[in-house]
């Protein structure tokens, strides 16, 4: 506690001293007052500079996006040939189409359909992946039996199995949830196994010497040390689940963002199609943001070194 205080206090003190020496050359009688004033103005200037810097860095980061949006808006009007312009509507048309879809409630409907499928599949994958991963990592024998099989499945692209799931489960919700679960399962599983496997053996020795039995050892040492790696897997699974879901919805569905996109395309409602694509990328961004925040929260003790 006290050390934190001194740490934050130090730069401020140093700054005052530096200012003092700079001002001190003028008159020694005025020194205290001037120094105090100088440090206040210095602090204000610093705060302003900080805010400006932050705004600047935001602006800097946004340049790429802004340039892209500008290109999207003006490119079709001035750069594209009239024949391709039909397929590349400018940004404002897309936004207008999005607004209309939103008013009609269809964006929400499709989003809800996609979300419920991906959440269901993703949830199943996380639960199954973490628990099976813990089991496999804990029982080494199981690992050697299952590992070749897992490698085989993992390297089979999930979408390649979509026809199989469709044949077995129909084109309804089950096949989509299943393929999402399948795609999201492997990142979770493999990262869980890796997380448990890479626990520091010294910590295991320490825990044993502290008299922890194997259950407690697992609960108090192995699991916590694996959590950051598990969350990396969960984040990867989140990305994978959206990717696969959209593709699956494009192939055969009655609702969902993937369906919205292909349906708009085949009905020649090109701005609607882009509105769907925009929604997909925003959804992906949102999910990733959420999962990254979660991952960071659970690996605070690990990432804090680099922060």
């Amino acid at each position, binding site marked *: *506690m*006290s050390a934190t205080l001194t740490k934050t206090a130090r730069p401020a003190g140093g700054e005052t001293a530096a200012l003092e020496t700079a001002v001190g050359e003028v008159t020694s009688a005025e020194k205290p007052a001037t120094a105090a004033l100088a440090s206040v103005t210095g602090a204000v200037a610093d705060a302003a500079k900080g805010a400006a810097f932050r705004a600047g860095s935001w602006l800097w980061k946004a340049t790429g996006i802004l340039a892209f949006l500008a290109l999207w808006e003006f490119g079709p009007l001035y750069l594209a040939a009239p024949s391709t312009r039909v397929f590349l509507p400018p940004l404002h048309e897309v936004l207008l189409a999005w607004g209309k879809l939103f008013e009609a409630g269809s964006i929400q409907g499709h989003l809800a359909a996609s979300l419920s499928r991906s959440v269901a599949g993703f949830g199943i994958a996380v639960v199954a992946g973490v628990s099976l991963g813990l089991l496999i990592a804990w029982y080494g024998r199981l690992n050697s039996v299952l590992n070749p099989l897992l490698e085989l499945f993992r390297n089979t692209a999930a979408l390649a199995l979509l026809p199989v799931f469709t044949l077995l489960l129909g084109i309804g919700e089950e096949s989509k949830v299943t393929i999402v679960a399948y795609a999201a399962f492997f990142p979770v599983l493999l990262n869980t196994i890796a997380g448990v496997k890479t626990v520091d053996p010294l*910590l295991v020795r*320490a825990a044993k*010497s502290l*008299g922890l039995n194997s259950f407690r050892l697992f609960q108090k040492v192995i699991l*916590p040390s694996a959590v950051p790696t598990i969350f990396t897997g969960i984040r990867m699974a989140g990305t994978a689940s959206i990717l696969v879901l959209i593709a699956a919805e494009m192939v055969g569905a009655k609702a969902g963002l993937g369906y919205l996109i292909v349906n708009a395309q085949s009905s020649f409602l090109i701005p609607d199609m882009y509105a769907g694509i925009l929604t997909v990328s925003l959804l992906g961004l949102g999910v990733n943001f959420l999962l990254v925040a979660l991952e960071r929260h659970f690996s605070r*003790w690990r990432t*804090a070194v680099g922060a």
Partner: protein
Amino acid sequence: MTAKISLRNVSKQFTVRPGKKSGGTATTLTAIDSLNLDVRDGEFLTLVGPSGSGKTTLLDLLAGLSTPTSGEVLVDGQPVTGPGKDRAVVFQQYALFPWRTASANVSIGLEGKGPDGRKLSRRERAAKASEYLKLVGLACFEDRFPHELSGGMKQRVAIARSLAYEPDVLLMDEPFAALDAQTREQLQEELLRIWRATGKTIVFITHGINEAVYLGQRVAVLSARPGRLKAIVEVEIPDRDGAEDIRSTPAFVEQRHKVWTLLHDEVRLAQDAGHRKILPDGSAPDEPATHQTPERSAA
């Protein structure tokens, strides 16, 4: 004078994985060979030996983290069957749990049922953790994570953790080796203070002769591999608790020289086998050089 710990004819062998050189046959390596040693109740025993002489192996046996190939390890007359709450280990590499705060690290050993079959509440555990953090000079650091602590502070937390569940025996494996000279001296003082205050039995491994003589009531010297007990030196330094720097008293220098002479041949043997942790002049590269001059002139 009862024996707290006794090692009876203890040997430990490892099966070494077949290397390419040995033509693919597994060989056995004798790390400790028929070792006999008694540690008295409340004694501070230091253990020195060349690198690879089986010190860590011996400590693992005492801690119950491994079992002897032959012979018996007795604590309080009972054979050791596994780790127990009567013994605590302090490792060289701190081995703190990085996701736990200092306080939670210290109290981890208290989370199960105590010897009286009662579970401590969270509040009681935190209070006990603060008490022991204070004992090692880390009051107010309860909520820090290990990565926010210096090496010396981490080792203090590790010591507090091993003291917190009140073991009779403290097993320490080169606990101060990774620290700078000042911190090490400070922690040595503190360890002696804690030992005097609590009366625990301490087995302390080190590769520093100064440290061994300074801390130990007796210094056990192991021979180069396979580890055997080469000798036990009773450290007799009059006026140990006196205010003056005992490291420069003639008695200390004499005892130190005795241990050094015992180690000398063993170190040369070990060095021939490729270990270089202790130099032939008896100095360890990461030990302060100030106290070594007398021996160098004697050698």
